[in-house]
């Protein structure tokens, strides 16, 4: 079963095409790394998955449902961390975590305390005084605390320090162990390499490569140095032709 299945997805903003036929499949219980250069259409794809934007053409299945029509039911079963987290200036981080948890309907006091501790967040500070990294932490804690099947994370660790990056990777691995699916859009290829089992590469609104980590390993080994980073840097530069990707 796939947690997410997209076929031929097209999205236009006025005359410009943001997505020109995206096809991807996210197996249940996997960590899916969604990567691509700036403006490739990652956030747009995610927003369509969340029913925030309306698709123009194509098929989108999210947890077996239609994300636009069944948004309320589906949102109960997922948690989302946007790439640019904005919070309520006059609320504290703790209040936001409680509020979002209650709105989603699934969270427990114990898990809340555990993740606040792990991410080392001061929940008594007003959101307007939080740094970017701390705002990101509030959203991440709120997502990890919830008892959901699917986590959709759009560049979730921008602004996190290396220590917190480690905690974050630990948390998504635990989520997978608990049977959750993670859809992770990221620019940090080392992070993707470390945690993901599946990878999709989007460029210019199209998926140009999709596969599991095992398949990619062989290609990575041919690189100099042998990292995913080198493979994709090479690739982003070379443009449309699938050189080096086999």
């Amino acid at each position, binding site marked *: 079963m796939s947690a997410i299945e997209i076929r031929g997805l097209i999205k236009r903003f006025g005359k410009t095409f943001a997505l020109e036929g995206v096809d991807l499949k996210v197996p249940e219980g996997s960590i899916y790394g969604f990567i691509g250069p700036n403006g490739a259409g990652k956030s747009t794809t995610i*927003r369509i998955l*969340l*029913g*925030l*934007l*309306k698709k123009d053409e194509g098929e989108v299945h999210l947890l077996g449902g239609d994300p636009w029509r069944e*948004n*309320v*039911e589906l*949102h*109960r079963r*997922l948690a*989302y961390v*946007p790439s640019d*987290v*904005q*919070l*309520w*200036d*006059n*609320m*504290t981080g*703790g*209040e*936001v975590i*409680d*509020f*979002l948890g*209650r*709105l*989603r*309907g699934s969270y427990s006091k114990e898990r809340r305390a555990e993740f606040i501790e792990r991410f080392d967040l001061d*929940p*008594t*500070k*007003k959101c*307007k*005084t939080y740094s970017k990294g701390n705002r990101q932490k509030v*959203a991440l804690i709120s997502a990890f605390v919830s008892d959901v099947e699917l986590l*959709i994370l759009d560049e979730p660790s921008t602004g996190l320090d290396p220590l917190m990056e480690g905690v974050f990777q630990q948390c998504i691995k635990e989520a997978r162990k608990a049977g959750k699916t993670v859809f992770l859009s990221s620019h940090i290829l080392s992070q993707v390499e470390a945690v993901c089992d599946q990878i999709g590469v989007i460029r210019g609104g199209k998926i140009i490569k999709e596969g599991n980590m095992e398949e990619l390993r062989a290609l990575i080994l041919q690189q100099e140095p042998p990292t995913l980073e080198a493979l994709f840097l090479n690739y982003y530069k070379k443009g449309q032709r699938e050189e080096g990707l086999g």
Partner: protein
Amino acid sequence: MKRYFHATLSLMGLYLRQNRIFTLFWLLAPGVWVAINTVSSLVLFPTQESLVEMGVSLIDPLTEAMHGPLLEVSIAGFVTWRTKVFLVLLGGIFSIIHMIRHTRLAEEQGKGELLGANVAGSLAPLAAGVANMALINAAAAILALLAMAALGLGLMGSLAHCLGFLAASCVLGLLAAVAAQLFVSATAARGASFGMLGVLFGLHILWNVSGGENRLAYFNPLEWPLLIRPFAGERFSLLLIPLTLGAVLTALSLWLMARRDLGAGLVPQRAGPAFAKPGLRNLQALAWRTQKGPFLSWFCFYAIFSFALGYASYLMVSAVSSAEALAGLIERLGGIEGAFLSLMLYVLGLLISVYVIMSAGILGREEAAKGETLLSMPVRRESLLLSHTVYIFGGTAAVLLMSGFCVGLGAVVGTGDGSALSRLFFEMAKMIPALWVIGGIALLLFGGLPRWMTGISYGLLILFVLMEILWEQQQIPEVLYALSPFSWITPLKAVQPAAAPLVLSIAALLLAGGGVILFRQRDAAI
């Protein structure tokens, strides 16, 4: 010095390149307004006699409450008298918006941090904001002076007039500069500045109505253009007061800025609660958190102001009854006691439209900034909209009802006339549906054109007010005027159809319903 003021000049240049349309209006509006008034006065009163006869008889207590006594019966005296309050309000509002934008708002948006980091001195942004504000006001005053001189008004008097509103605008801007240091949020700083302007304006009206001299008037910027006596034996020495005040306020704002951290207020932020109250669990509770500030401010301000107005009304009633020229108008408004107050209440009620659009604007910003977080929760889109509609519709009704009650109460206390309470209360209450239409329009725009909602809403509001004025001067036909929701409640019509409230309510409901449908179908505006 370098540590504090380095790069002030380049910041001034940077600020001037931003918001050019805004600056252009600010520069031109005073001159254009004075010119329009001068030309129309020259046309209306071709001779000195016609001015004495018609012009002076046109002065009714309402105008006098607004503008104070006419010092000099001549075209020049008439024009300066008619334009000064508006010029101060205009210059003051532009200066306040400008000051907050370049100080607290910039800090809030993180621009201050960027600028403060290494390129500019720590006080440079504030200093540049103040300097630009003074420069733009001065340029606007010079343009107004040129316009007046070109139209043949005397130079000395024109100079006094322009210096008067220039001084007032600058000092109001400087008050905002100080407020920007005290409050952590731009909204609060702007609110405090406009609140202060509102209080000064209220005092201005009160002093004009009660007549007589008042020493405190020397400290109210709105009085300066009168006290400097343009065309009536100019008193330039008055400018010492604004100069001193201006210097003190500038120094105070710089001193406060130097004492605090970037982004902080003077009162340090206290730690808040680590846990949310049990009640904070749905969108209604969240809407209360985001809407309560503006709502309570408007509610309290209107309660107090309305009570004062009702209380002072007997003064005005006696003033109105002695003015013969007003007989016709008073007749239309339904008799002496009703007349003045009706008109005042009507204007007071129309101003609540600003609250309506502001509260809709909060909904718009909530979607733009937190839409991704909120709309990815298991909530229906329409519940987000409805949670704010409580304030756009219900909050508005509450402000109007409270205002009506307080005017009535004030009138009862002031005049001892027990019947005033219910009469004034219902007068205010029957305006509610018209304001709901404004809210309906804002919601329809929220659904259809979210990014343009606030701009178009204010544009339409101004259009409706203009239509009112044009209709009164019989320059637009009745049918066109009927398109404005205000035409259904204006006290300038002797009778309104009994169905007016129903028609307006249905219109508001349809508009809001259209907004809901469009919002459900569109891309989130994120």
